[in-house]
């Protein structure tokens, strides 16, 4: 009797049934998402508190030892310095260059398409192959860069200390020099990344209403600079937040250049020992899954933090809805 009552009562509660169907339909996607995206993160989180190695039958819980190591050992201090140097250098410059290139290309019209393609080439090329080309160019003795620099010897260029030094004692070893290594990596990161930012900014620029520039002119904005601050920059706010976030995440993820240049150790004196490379070295090469997971968790925290800032900015500051 009670069963038939329940069945009879069902149609009276359509919301319940709808909710159940909805959950049923969502379940496969939800299961996939959890097992593909969330489970690995949780597993890595758990492993970061152990000393697990792949192939070992078991592992020991070692508490926060992995994390303590991260914040005390000098190797990891170098890792943080290299990573943050890279992020702090590459993000502003590649975003700034991307914006500048986008503004120039946007003002060109048809010829702009050629520039667009050229600037985008490094984005499309595999960084690994490009890194090999750069390695040749930066070779201390037979590389194009140092040979070109050497041509300045004997001319008035020697007034500049850099050239004076270089001509007397030889130009930098670039990839082999611990003072230059990370900056070379930064340079390649910028060279490779700004075309991507330019394309994003170009998309943003097409959405700026042309009449706004005319309104700005009528309102007394005389120079291109004034119009930029009154119209273009605010209109690009959402794009900028997105571009900066993406650039930050990409910068945190830098790996292939370093792997190509210094497969054994992350640069001279670990000066280019970035996080991704550390994860690779510890977790894959040395099979120290525990410490590798701990770095991964830290990495995730940084990226999550950036994403939250982006969300906050988008919702609070740059949406004029």
């Amino acid at each position, binding site marked *: 009797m009670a069963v038939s009552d329940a069945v009879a009562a069902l149609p009276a509660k359509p919301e319940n049934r709808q909710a159940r169907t909805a959950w049923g339909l969502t379940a496969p996607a939800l299961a996939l998402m959890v097992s593909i995206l969330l489970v690995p993160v949780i597993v890595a989180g758990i492993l970061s508190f152990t000393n697990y190695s792949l192939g070992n039958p078991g592992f020991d819980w070692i508490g926060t030892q992995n994390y303590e190591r991260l914040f005390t050992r000098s190797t990891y201090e170098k890792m943080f310095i290299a990573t943050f140097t890279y992020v702090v250098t590459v993000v502003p410059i590649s975003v700034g260059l991307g914006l500048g290139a986008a503004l120039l290309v946007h003002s060109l019209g048809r010829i702009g398409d050629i520039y667009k393609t050229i600037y985008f080439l490094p984005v499309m090329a595999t960084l690994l192959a490009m890194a090999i080309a750069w390695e040749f160019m930066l070779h201390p003795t037979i590389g194009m860069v140092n040979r070109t620099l050497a041509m300045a010897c004997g001319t008035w260029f020697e007034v500049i200390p850099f050239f004076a030094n270089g001509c007397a004692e030889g130009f930098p070893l670039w990839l082999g020099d611990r003072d230059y290594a990370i900056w070379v990596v930064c340079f390649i990161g910028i060279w490779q990344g700004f075309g991507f930012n330019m394309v994003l900014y170009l998309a943003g620029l097409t959405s700026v*209403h042309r*009449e*706004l520039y*005319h*309104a*700005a*002119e*009528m*309102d*007394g*904005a*005389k120079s291109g600079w*004034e119009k930029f601050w*009154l*119209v273009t920059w*605010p*209109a690009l*706010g959402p794009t900028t937040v997105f571009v900066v976030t993406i650039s930050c995440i990409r910068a945190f993820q830098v790996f292939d250049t370093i792997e190509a240049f210094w497969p054994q150790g992350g640069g001279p004196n670990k000066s280019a020992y970035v996080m991704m490379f550390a994860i690779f070295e510890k977790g894959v090469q040395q099979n120290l899954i525990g410490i590798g997971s701990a770095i991964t968790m830290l990495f995730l925290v940084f990226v999550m933090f950036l994403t939250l800032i982006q969300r906050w900015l988008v919702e609070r500051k*740059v949406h*004029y*809805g």
Partner: protein
Amino acid sequence: MANLKVTSVTKQFGETPVLKGITLDIADGEFVSLVGPSGCGKSTLLRIIAGLEAPTGGTVAIGDMDVTGMQAADRNLSMVFQSYALYPHLSVAENIAVPLRMREVTGLQRLPVIGGLMPGARGQKQSIATSVARAADRLEIGGLLNRKPGQLSGGQRQRVALGRALVRDPAAFLLDEPLSNLDAKLRVQTRAEIAELHRALNATFIYVTHDQVEAMTMSDRIAVMMGGEILQCAAPEIIYEDPDDIRVAEFIGSPKINILPLERYGSDLSLFGRSLDWHVTQDSPQVMQLGLRPEALHLTQSAPRLRGRVAHFENLGSEVFAQIALEDDAMRVTLRATPAERQMLGLGAEVGLAFDTRSAMAFDADGKRLRKIEAMAGVTSEVA
């Protein structure tokens, strides 16, 4: 406030001529409408006056000073755009303040933190706020000052755009179809408000519209544009009652003016083969066109000049418009009748129409007005 003079302005986009020699004289404090169909070059002319577009030839002068080569920002004109063009990231108050900030405040003072420390910044901020409040009060948008344009309705945005134009004291106001994005009711209301604003400010207004009703109701003078030329520029009554060109007559007036073929046999003019008893000289053109406003026609029983059948009618309450099919549906004319005449206008009813010779207009085959012919015809018909 100043007068404005446009002399022989031409404009080409690539090979396409858009303006073909525009000359327009606007007196100080005058309200002039530029009216014409879409694509005739009204916006282009307005943008040339504003300085947003350079003319291919000709000159623009404001207050007797040649400004043809001058930047838009230096011309001291205010413009209201069709899309309103409000800055989406600024609040209503900030939007209205932009023209003052850009003109009266130096670049250094506009900087966020340092600007506040500059000498005179505080007093200036105060005076800008006062001007903004006054403009907002005038347009009754005082309650919206802290909102962003995205949170406003179309009508409110339009007011903010107006506020931004009138917050300072420009030489002239340029308005490019400011009402075309509003609904019909709001359009009528805002129309009256803009006209009132013009009277209160006593400023020079150039108002672009494709809507002849707006032009008729608001302007001191109307310039009818078509195909990159001004066909006629005159007071609304003259444009309506005494057009120079058949295109002006057809564009202004709703319902449209009736155009009938007019033929000359010897010295006699006739309509559909029936003599009108109008006599003209032998050197008049063979084929002409007769323009009759719907209100120039009236129903008659005795000796009608036109005969036809009622094909359609629209009762608007205060007046009735009937379409009469003439000559076996070869041509239709629109007649304005009074509600009292309604029962004579049943669908399919045979009616006779007459018209007053003085309100008829004659045009040649190309559409130019033939005032000489009208004068001759009018004289003879009065004698007859």
